[in-house]
């Protein structure tokens, strides 16, 4: 018994001693978290959405249709792989892989590794296990978030079809229109805490009011911009089934489509987790329940709200969407960003915020 305990401790010691091993361990932890998260997300997307629309959703495979996702995955992987004749082979093959890899990198900045390692007794988790606690972690998340329009354009062009090219342009136009308000509204949270470290932002929130209240306008702006960045209804013009088939990924089939789909859900998970960390206090919650459960549950709740919005609102037209982005969201996020320092002073004076 003691022997097992010691060997586990020595494994932990070895892993946290070697930088590369530690990074690989953190990456695998993040991968497990995001896999479970994506499975729950897709299940919620199907079941909850169906219930809102008075449908049943999947029921046949497994209890309450819970194994439907695995059946789908097996089907995607067992399909034949081919490249359409007019496609640019290299770019066509590499875009889905890069989409998964870049969306996965976003998770390096989100403190899931801290939440997981705090499950273990403190002798096991030297804080040196955590890598997400570094200075511009928010920028890392958004730097890789911002790679999506380029990938979409390349993917749409490489498919070699008119649908994919036009879909790629629409997709890219949408993503770039909402990136400015996205950046400016998260900057107002940064201006409140004067830190680009997501870890530190959560720690400030644990001693203050949640930024959902202090930064309500920024939250609303960020949520709308994030909805558009994740290409979810009411902004899912890129996937407007009746108009554009499937947008830029029309020519992707089989396992490549699986990768595109997976990257969308990883992005959705990462986006919900960023909203959780910026505005809802991350892992902070009443004591007996561990921080990992809090951050994970909050992320899933945010995602459920996104699905709810998807069920409740009709799709906007593309001109309405671009007008909203450029003429409403950009000016209002600029105004709120400039006002934020005054809010910060007010909050500090009234003890709503402790820096």
């Amino acid at each position, binding site marked *: 018994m003691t022997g097992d305990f010691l060997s586990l401790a020595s494994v932990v010691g070895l892993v946290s001693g070697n930088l590369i091993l530690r990074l690989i361990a953190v990456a695998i932890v993040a991968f497990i978290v995001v896999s479970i998260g994506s499975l729950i997300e897709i299940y919620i997307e199907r079941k909850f959405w169906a219930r809102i629309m008075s449908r049943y959703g999947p029921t046949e495979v497994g209890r309450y249709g819970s194994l439907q996702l695995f059946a789908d995955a097996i089907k995607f992987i067992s399909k034949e792989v081919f490249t359409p004749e007019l496609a640019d082979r290299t770019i066509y093959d590499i875009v889905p892989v890069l989409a998964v890899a870049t969306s996965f990198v976003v998770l390096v900045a989100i403190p899931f590794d801290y939440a997981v390692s705090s499950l273990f007794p403190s002798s096991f988790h030297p804080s040196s296990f955590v890598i997400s606690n570094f200075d511009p972690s928010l920028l890392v998340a958004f730097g890789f978030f911002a790679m999506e329009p380029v990938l979409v354009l390349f993917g749409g062009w490489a498919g070699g*079809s008119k649908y994919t090219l036009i879909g790629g342009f629409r997709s890219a136009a949408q993503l770039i229109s909402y990136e400015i308000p996205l950046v400016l509204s998260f900057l107002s949270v940064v201006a409140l805490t004067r830190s680009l470290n997501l870890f530190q932002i959560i720690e400030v929130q644990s001693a203050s009011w949640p930024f959902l209240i202090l930064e309500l306008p920024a939250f609303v702006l960020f949520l709308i911009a994030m909805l558009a960045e994740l290409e979810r209804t009411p902004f899912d013009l890129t996937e407007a089934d009746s108009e554009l088939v499937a947008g830029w990924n029309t020519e992707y089939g089989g396992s490549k489509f*699986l*990768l595109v789909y997976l990257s969308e859900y990883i992005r959705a998970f990462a986006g919900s987790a960023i909203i959780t960390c910026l505005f809802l206090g991350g892992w902070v919650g009443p004591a007996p329940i561990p921080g990992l459960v809090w951050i994970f549950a909050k992320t899933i709740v945010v995602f459920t709200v996104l699905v709810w919005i998807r069920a409740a609102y009709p799709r906007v037209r593309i001109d309405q969407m671009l007008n909203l982005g*450029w003429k409403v969201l950009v000016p209002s996020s600029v105004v709120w960003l*400039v006002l934020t320092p005054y809010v910060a002073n007010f909050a500090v004076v009234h003890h709503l915020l402790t820096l």
Partner: protein
Amino acid sequence: MGLEQGLGIIVFFALGAIVGYAAEFIPRLLIKSKKTAEKMMPFESGEDPVGTSRVRFRIQYYIFAVAFVTFDVVAAIAIPWAVGWNLIVWTPLLVLFGSMLLVIGYYAAKGELEWL
């Protein structure tokens, strides 16, 4: 400090890419592909494709890209301001934001931000 996180990014990217490549290339080994003319042609709702697929369309969309790049630069310059607004004079940032809103207002008035 930056180096460790740089390596972390590389490890995360590598793990994502390995998973992606595995999902893309393992089926290729296991499943024989039968190519037919219909399968290889671009999808156009079941019709035979007409003309080139690299179509040119309205140059007006270029405006969105230009606006995006210029405003993204402004947003990037606002990042140090957001971190250190208590240490500095705000005028340059306000001038930048003002000119950005001016350009948007001009576009809006001229109707250049319409997607047709």
